[in-house]
């Protein structure tokens, strides 16, 4: 199935921009490596697929997909799902750590207050 040239050019520009954005975010350390990896994989995949239109058709033929663009949608959805799952893991980890820190801070505060009380008593 032939894709009009203008559409391919637009697709390549958009995917290249996405890939550049991801790389830039990693370079400026605004995206941690652990989350960057999956985004890089998604960016590269989209870029390669948009650059080589024949690749999608070839893959679709291999998997017996009658309408090749479906493949792109499925791939995008899968990436989105995996990224969401990873984010949930990250949020869970942070929630656990936040709870531990809050408990730790509360226990430390109590110790400190008790110590201060003792030292003012001994000064009097």
């Amino acid at each position, binding site marked *: 199935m032939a894709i009009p040239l203008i559409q391919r050019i637009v697709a390549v520009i958009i995917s290249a921009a996405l890939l550049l954005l991801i790389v830039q975010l990693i370079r400026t350390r605004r995206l941690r490596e652990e989350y960057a990896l999956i985004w890089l994989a998604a960016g590269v995949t989209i870029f390669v697929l948009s650059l080589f239109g024949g690749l999608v058709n070839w893959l679709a033929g291999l998997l017996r997909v009658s309408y090749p663009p479906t493949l792109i949608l499925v791939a995008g959805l899968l990436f989105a799902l995996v990224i969401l799952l990873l984010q949930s893991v990250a949020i869970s980890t942070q929630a656990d750590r936040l709870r531990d820190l809050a408990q730790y801070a*509360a226990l430390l505060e*109590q110790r400190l207050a008790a110590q201060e009380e003792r030292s003012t008593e001994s000064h009097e």
Partner: protein
Amino acid sequence: MLDTGAERLLVVAPALNEAAVIGRVVRDVREIAARADVLVVDDGSTDETARRAAAAGAYVVRHAYNLGIGAAVQTGLKFACARGYDLVVRVDGDGQHRHEDIPALYAALCEAGADAAFGSRFLPDGPWRHANPEGMAIPPLRRAGIVCFSCLIFALTGERATDPTSGFACYSRRATEVLAAFMPQDYPEVESRIILHRAGLRTVETPTRMLPRRTGASSITAARSLYYAGKVTVAVLMTALKSLEARSPYDREMRVMPPMRSTAGSRSWPSR
């Protein structure tokens, strides 16, 4: 009066906006267990809870924001581990538990050589069958939910828990360490039974009554109870799946999962 001999006992009372009753709870407990220390964990109260608890002679640990009942109890257990207490009794900060029953709870723990003793309203020989004017009336729907949780716990652990939502409990040092590391967060009462069982610890129950709340409303309203039941069931099933591997250095230090490590002497957490 409660005499625990040479064993040091900490009574943990998690509290959220219980300024009206917390002072009485602390004084009550101190009267019954004169040699015990009382710790009130203030889980982000916006009222005078912390000040009144301290004025009544309790240690007070304050969470900077509301972390939930499971985390509040866990903070108390971490406190107990750090200070080397041998026993922990958990009561509710709203005064629903009968503090006169603390000695019975302790006696049940010792008698059975168990690691956790729970106060139960529903033991066959318990007082709940008798005329009980001061006891709390339990709506049939809630009673049905409690029976369901009992069955669930029996299916998962083979243990009888006649009152699995009861938070009135006495923990040994080992149980304290296990729960300090792995305390379930949202609905800790039911899930903690599973955790204790998986850690290879024995539990017993002893009859008690629960008093009607003096102030405030239960965290479980009638409309939410079905939702609550579903969530607890899912949470319990997930607890049965969860790994009990330590995930932080703190957990590792606390770990008493098999193979069991001796925990002689008191730890000086959090310094060191």
